[in-house]
């Protein structure tokens, strides 16, 4: 029972993180229909930014965290400005392959700068974040994950629901032509969605780094798990991404706990194929209304 609960808690918080990082992915997909294959590298970049600020620059934790997020935000804008904007109007396949190239570039760059070793952050989380209820023990990391994740989720929810810029972003995702006719800055929306996606990805990367340590290969592999997550949740549903993430996280943890640890990393992809076969638009996705 103890084991079961540990696995459950671990799976939930990892899954929550998957969901959060998938949220950024969905945002890019919704606004510009681009599948971002560099998502894992964005996670890794966030984690390494934080690492650099904490261990090299020796800045305080909170400041480093905010700086790392700001840097990711900026990076997102730069990527959109320099690499993706020239491709507006080109076939989507080019844009998607550009992200494949980008992924290789980023990964090579990180390996060049930091190498493939595992880094750990200094232990800074207050012990009070951990909770002990009888046999259930939640380590501080998971507590922190849940708090940070929830804060972000609520913030973004409010942003998209009520702020004007959030509504403009949704309008572009909905009907780009109409948004353009009303003077919505579509390019700015693209840049903003990349920026926010990079920020959320960076945040997830940092938290994953706190849990598992920082390593490019691991983080970029986790980045590819957004695909099972978003296919499960429906490619265009932000809420679906969170739930899909939690399901995948639980599934992984239970597989490695009860079946075999090596199976852990393929289970999400088996689920992906099954979902594509059985329920191709995901559990929560909107079936596209096609008009010729």
């Amino acid at each position: 029972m103890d084991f079961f609960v540990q696995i459950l808690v671990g799976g939930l918080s990892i899954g929550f993180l998957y969901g959060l990082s998938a949220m950024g992915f969905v945002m890019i997909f919704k606004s510009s229909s681009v599948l971002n294959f560099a998502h894992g590298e964005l996670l890794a970049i966030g984690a390494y930014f934080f690492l650099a600020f904490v261990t090299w620059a020796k800045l305080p934790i909170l400041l480093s965290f905010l700086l790392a997020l700001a840097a990711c935000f900026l990076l997102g804008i730069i990527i959109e400005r320099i690499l993706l904007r020239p491709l507006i109007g080109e076939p989507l396949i080019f844009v998607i392959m550009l992200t494949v190239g980008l992924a290789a570039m980023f990964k090579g760059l990180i390996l060049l700068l930091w190498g493939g070793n595992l880094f750990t952050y200094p232990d800074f989380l207050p012990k009070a974040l951990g909770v002990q209820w009888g046999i259930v023990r939640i380590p501080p990391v998971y507590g922190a994950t849940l708090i940070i994740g929830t804060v972000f989720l609520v913030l973004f929810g409010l942003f998209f629901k009520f702020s004007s810029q959030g509504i403009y972003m949704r309008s572009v995702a909905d009907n780009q032509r109409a948004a353009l006719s009303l003077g919505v800055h579509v390019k700015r929306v693209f840049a903003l969605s990349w920026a926010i996606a990079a920020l959320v990805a960076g945040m997830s990367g940092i938290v994953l780094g706190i849990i598992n340590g920082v390593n490019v290969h691991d983080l970029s592999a986790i980045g590819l798990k957004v695909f099972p997550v978003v296919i499960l949740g429906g490619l265009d549903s932000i809420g679906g991404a969170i739930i899909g993430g939690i399901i995948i996280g639980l599934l992984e943890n239970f597989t490695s706990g009860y079946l075999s640890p090596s199976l852990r990393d393929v289970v999400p992809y088996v689920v992906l194929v099954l979902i594509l076969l059985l329920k191709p638009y995901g559990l929560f996705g909107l079936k596209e209304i096609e008009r010729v």
Partner: protein
Amino acid sequence: MHPCGNFRERYEQEIKVFSTDFGRLWAGVGFVLLLAVVPLLATPYTLYIVNTIGIAAIAVIGLNILIGFTGQISLGHGAFFGVGAYAAAILSTALGLPLIVSVPAAGLITALIGMIFGIPSGRLKGLYLTIATLAGQFIIEYVLIHWESLTQGTMGITLPPARLLGLPIRGDLGFYYLIFASLAGMGWIAVNLVRTRYGRAFIAIRDNDRAAEGMGIPIFRYKLLSFGISSFYAGFAGALWAYYMGSITAEPFNLGLSVEYIAMVIIGGLGSISGSIFGAVFITLLNEGLRFMTGILMNWGFISQSGLNIAPLREFVFGLAIVLFILLEPRGLAELWRIVRSNFRLWPFSY
């Protein structure tokens, strides 16, 4: 010589492979030179590189049929290449099949496995195939490593020496002939395939799948067919590679290889069979060049002392090459070649 302007009057003229006899002649001469002269000039190392290029080119031609002609991306071709290699290895060791049977059979097996991953995505419009093949990549990698009774896991499989129709194929030179005969054959099939109704259906799907469907092209069947064909090419190339290497493990068939193939397709030129070969040449040479450079740089004292690891430079340069080609010359080396050629043809009078 090329006529100036478009004087084609019939569809047959439009789909001609060589627009003039002159071009046909040059292609023939080049082919003969390739077969006769290269082996004479080559050292074992250059032959090894040329062979690697040839094998990659076969796989990339297949991938180009999928990406360049049908407009679907596969991120699993590295794994499919591996499936071909393992299929050939298992067929030749466990069943004792000869090369001439096992290589095409390996291609067919790969095509079948590829189509299994293609089925769910074929039903959907858009780029679901990409995602399904990504899953395929990971699942196949896992199976290759963990199905030990079949693949012998991390131990790998050693193949019997290759024999073709009773003749032993020895050394890099023997394989050079085998590989280039295969490349010529597979290239010829591909060039002609894209001129048939199948090729035209693929292009129609690429350009507008809704319109293609409206014109009565069963897009699911054709997408799957295209995917099967391209997996066949990958499997075929993988099988040749297995024989060439003599022994295989699952290690090289990772996502990195898939990305490498995609890079070859893009850099070579989407939708161009000759471009696929250019892409294979470019990336393989880039690869070797970088390896060479890394070797030199590592010997420089200050770099090896600084602890900087140069090896990832390869990955970075790959990515950079993909990005730059997409931004600057999205139609790849094939287009650059065409421009160079027409400049030569018109020089010194550009009109």
